[in-house]
């Protein structure tokens, strides 16, 4: 399975960027939790993991040169790059050409692996009983997908004929995140999706969850919450076991508040009857494991995940079907093998939908439908990338995947919207005397700055160029009254050329 836009790697580096930006004392506090150390460890690349594992049980520092010797000569450069990255994450310290693991990180990662230290950072199981039978994994998956899809559907936001929004708006916390992340903005008729919001919709679930979590961190910062506590709790959530009940009792007040807010996204589930009991859903637990992308992709395909637990095999199946369900024909018709309301809603953003069967949606790209999408800030490239990424396996074999004529057409539709280029110009009016106007006009014509002139109305539009200053001066000399008689206008240069 190939990752197209907003790949996993890209988003991991974004959380990495966030960690890098933390001041040293903050990161030391983050590292003081074994769960956070393990989660971070799982997030970094394979080579990084390899380097850390090699140094984990070394108490002395290593010479950087020796470290690079571990790799083949052609890869040494890459290894040094990795060391540099790890250093930026403050996992590795470097002094006089010697490298060693950050001592706090080293200790706590060892604890995480061997089960020592403050093990409550991995969450306290509820009542100490092992597997809770009251909420099954299926229910969890159903709950998470439903919440997450509700948010996405809200973003796609459609209004039916009565003007009422068909989709129940999600909780305020969700809306506020969407707003601050600039995925949606407040418009006349409630919230409307933005350009980046559309991009967001086109990403896979894992990337989407990261985007939301990062935004949550930024918002927490703005609200003067203790970032370290927030971070630690996030890493704790990531490390939780799917389907197991955890106790909220040992949590701090900030963390309990987070629990309430993350619940609205479907990242965690809180049992109504037992308020001190919570579960992590696959949306968060999948973040630390790359293999779980499958079950993530599953979430867009509600049918499968709702009815049955996404076992790995089924997950793959769902992934392959959700990956590539759109056929685009040379006659601009679109056939999408889907029954997901969300996917249909996304298509509805730029496709004129025509008919629908249980497993197929037909529609057409029309000038109007595409222009409507464009007017919402969606770009032609985004539409094309989306269609390419989700092209049906039948189309994948072709190069290029989409018919060139159609992609050209979409771009042309975009271009035709951008045909008016506003440029600054000056508009002169109210010339008192005809000969004044004539002299100015003649002069303007001589130096070639006239855009438009009407002799009857004694009005004149000139370009704003370097000579403009000279023109101004001359105007002043020629006709003494003018300085106040003009105003700037933006001239559309479509026809007047």
């Amino acid at each position, binding site marked *: 399975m190939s990752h197209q836009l907003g790949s996993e790697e890209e988003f991991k580096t974004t959380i990495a960027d966030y960690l890098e930006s933390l001041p040293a004392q903050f990161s030391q506090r983050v590292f003081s939790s074994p769960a956070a150390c393990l989660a971070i460890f799982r997030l970094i690349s394979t080579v990084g993991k390899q380097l850390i594992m090699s140094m984990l049980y070394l108490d002395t520092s290593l010479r950087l040169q020796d470290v690079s010797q571990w790799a083949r000569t052609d890869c040494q450069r890459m290894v040094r790059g990795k060391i540099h990255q790890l250093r930026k994450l403050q996992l590795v310290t470097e002094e006089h050409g010697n490298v060693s693991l950050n001592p706090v990180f080293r200790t706590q990662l060892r604890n995480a692996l061997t089960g020592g230290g403050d093990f409550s950072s991995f969450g306290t199981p509820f009542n100490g009983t092992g597997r809770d039978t009251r909420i099954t994994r299926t229910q969890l998956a159903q709950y998470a997908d439903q919440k997450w899809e509700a948010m996405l*559907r809200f973003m796609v936001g*459609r209004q*039916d*004929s009565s003007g009422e929004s*068909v*989709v129940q708006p999600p909780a305020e916390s969700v809306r506020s995140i969407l707003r601050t992340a600039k995925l949606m903005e407040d418009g006349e008729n409630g919230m409307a999706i933005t350009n980046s919001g559309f991009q967001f919709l086109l990403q896979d679930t894992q990337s989407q969850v990261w985007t939301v979590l990062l935004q949550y961190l930024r918002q927490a910062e703005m609200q003067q919450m203790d970032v370290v506590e927030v971070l630690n709790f996030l890493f704790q959530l990531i490390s939780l076991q799917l389907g197991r009940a955890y106790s909220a009792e040992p949590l701090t007040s900030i963390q309990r508040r987070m629990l309430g807010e993350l619940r609205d996204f479907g990242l965690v589930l809180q049992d109504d009857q037992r308020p001190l009991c919570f579960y992590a859903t696959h949306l968060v637990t999948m973040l630390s494991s790359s293999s779980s992308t499958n079950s993530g992709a599953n979430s867009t395909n509600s049918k499968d995940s709702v009815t049955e637990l996404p076992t790995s095999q089924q997950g793959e199946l769902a992934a392959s079907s959700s990956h590539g369900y759109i*056929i685009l*024909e*040379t*006659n601009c*018709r679109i*056939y999408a093998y889907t*029954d997901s*309301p969300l996917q*249909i*809603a996304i298509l*509805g953003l730029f496709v004129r*939908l*025509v*008919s*629908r*069967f*249980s*497993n*197929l949606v*037909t529609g057409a790209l029309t000038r109007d439908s595409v222009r409507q999408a464009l007017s919402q800030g969606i770009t032609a490239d985004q539409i094309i990338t989306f269609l390419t990424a989700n092209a*049906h396996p*039948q*189309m994948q074999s072709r190069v290029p995947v989409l*018919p*060139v*004529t*159609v992609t*050209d*057409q979409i771009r*042309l539709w975009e271009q035709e919207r951008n045909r008016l280029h506003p440029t600054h110009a000056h508009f002169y009016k109210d010339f008192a005397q005809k000969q004044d106007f004539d002299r100015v006009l003649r002069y303007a014509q001589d130096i070639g700055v006239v855009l438009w002139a009407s002799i009857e109305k004694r009005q004149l539009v000139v370009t704003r160029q370097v000579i403009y200053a000279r023109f101004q001066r001359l105007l002043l000399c020629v006709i003494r009254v003018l300085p106040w008689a003009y105003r700037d206008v933006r001239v559309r240069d479509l*026809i007047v*050329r």
Partner: protein
Amino acid sequence: MGFGAADDEYDVLGIPQRDPSTGLFGKGDYSYLRLKPDHESRPLWICPQSGHIILEAFSPIAEQAIDFLIAISEPVSRPTYIHEYKLTPFSLYAAVSVGLNTNDIIEVLNRLSKVPVPPDVVSVINQCTKSYGKVKVVLKHNRYYVESSYPSILQRLLRDPVIMRARVFPEDDTAGTVSKDGIITQKVSQMDDVSIGGLKKPSATNERAQGDDDTATGADDEMGLGGVRLDKEDEDEDEDDAEGIVHAFEIGSAHYEEVRKRCNEIDYPMIEEYDFRNDRRNADLGIDLKPATTIRPYQEKSLSKMFGNGRARSGIIVLPCGAGKTLVGITAACTVKKSILCLCTSSVSVMQWKQQFLQWSTIKEEQIALFTSDVKMRFQGDAGLVITTFSMVANRRKRSHEAQQMLDFLENREWGMMLLDEVHVVPANMFRNVVSRIAAHSKLGLTATLVREDDKIDDLNFLIGPKLYEANWMDLANKGHIATVQCAEVWCEMTPEFYKAYLEESTRKKLLIYVMNPNKFRACQYLINFHNGRGDKIIVFVDNVFSLITYAKTLGLPYIYGGTPQRERMRILKNFQNNPLLNTIFLSKVGDTSLDLPEATCLIQVSSHYGSRRQEAQRLGRILRAKRRNDEGFNAFFYSLVSKDTQEMLYSTKRQQFLIDQGYSFKVITQLEGIEDCPDLVYGDVDSQKKLLHTVKMASESDAALEKEDTAPGGSKDAAGGSSVRRTTGSLKGLSGASNMAYMESSGRRGAGNGRRATNREPVEHHPLFKRQYYSKK
């Protein structure tokens, strides 16, 4: 009858799915149709109400499904992956006439469909097929018999007073058994002794690949049933038995028209079939395909639909230009082996047909008679072939003695088959005229594009017969039968001066201005130079005569339009074909159809007839038969030059629709690469552009019109003084071809002009009277 839906039927199928997408589709939400459990192995969906069928063309059984669908429905779009078809009453009528019955259709549809066939579709199929095609009219021993496998239907017909009156009671020597009520019962002739065009003669088969032969016999057997054979079951046998017996009664030939009309009225349209092998009364024509002649699989398939049960069915065969329609016609003639009347659109194509007949078949020159304004000859012997034009036959004006004699000759004979070339161009009334006056046992219409901007196509269904076969353009191109074409739409920016003039001028001058746009001029010249360099032979189409002449003269190239004398035309065309120094010619509309130039490999369209989809397809057809099409990597090129921001853009989009639905795609070129680096292009500077604009502005309004006789409904100029104004006051819809601004009709009249253009320069040869008569009838 139609696809009106009865809502309460849906409950049978399942509870409509309710989710947030409900309502997005309006009436197009068919999610209540339950998928069959094994839907993945079935290739199609059926829409209730509209009767649309959506087919996965990548399915393993798509080919059989397509064979079946093409028999029962009209193709809507056939691009690469997903095809769409539509069930219409006419398509179902055609299905029945090639031998499918109601149960076959519903059963095979159900077998192929992912969803159950919706009840309303079933009821429409029932409704359309129940009455259609159950009754045949057969000419046997020159007597008309009304025939049916269902005695009850005959009883029903006999109760009708009109038909009863026409009835003739059988005499004693009739073959078969005669029942009490006078209905003759007979065994139907067996299918398997048909031979198409003598193909099964050993001399012919030797020349052909064994594989082809298999498809030949296979095609007869499988014809029509298409998908039924897909997974054949026992039930077929019973049906065969039932169909083995036919019932008939005779009607008097004087009442033939009357009965046909009456049958249409009471919803039992009759299929016309000709039992040519048992026709002893009309003399046989000794004609066969030459041993060296091979016909292609799709040609054979189309013919097998016509001769499926050993008789000749009347109908229309649709093949792309250049796919060998002529050969299909000739093969049909060789199968029927009776006197043949062949009607074409112009005297040029009369000559071409004659030449083709001599080339492919064993017919002797003295058996062929031509009937045009120049030549009037007759064939020798009892049977023969007459080639003429529609207008020669349809023209009712007082004729010269010679022509009148010839007409009498045509009308007083019985013809085995009437071949109608380019059947889409001829107006219905002219057809009616021809068809009713000439007695032919069967009729075969040939065309490439069964689309008209008006809805007169439907008339053809009853005047000639149903569409028997329609080929897939892309499929033929992929198999190398016709050339693959790169289509492009070149956007030419209007120069500021021209655009200003465009905005200011009257509607009809606008056309001239966007056609004469200097940038278009330059683009045209650039493309000519470019393709000259590649060794292509280029045809440039300019509809508007004024522009045609300006373009051609400026670029110093020869041109042909309506006013060009025949001899001059032939000289230019010969030169184009044989002279390596002449690689480009300019043509007006005269070149649209029936002009066989296999040398041409590149086509540039500078101006065209508004939004006519048919013209676009016909023009593309000029390069589909390119001689070099089977060269490795060969592509023919089709450019359409369009002035940006003018009405032309709108027309252009509309024009392309037919081809796009056939799977062609038009690449939009906004900037021709390297055009700036060509200093020797014309109209490079503003001064010369202004001069050009001046000429255009000075041009009279009449110059701005498209070729005269093609647009004025009155025909000759003096006959329709006011019509020149009327011509342009049509609505936009009308101009773009949506209402009956019928391009094909005018082409028909070109045919009527006998291939000679009736411009104002050239006096109209005949028929203002005829035309007035024709149009007053409308």
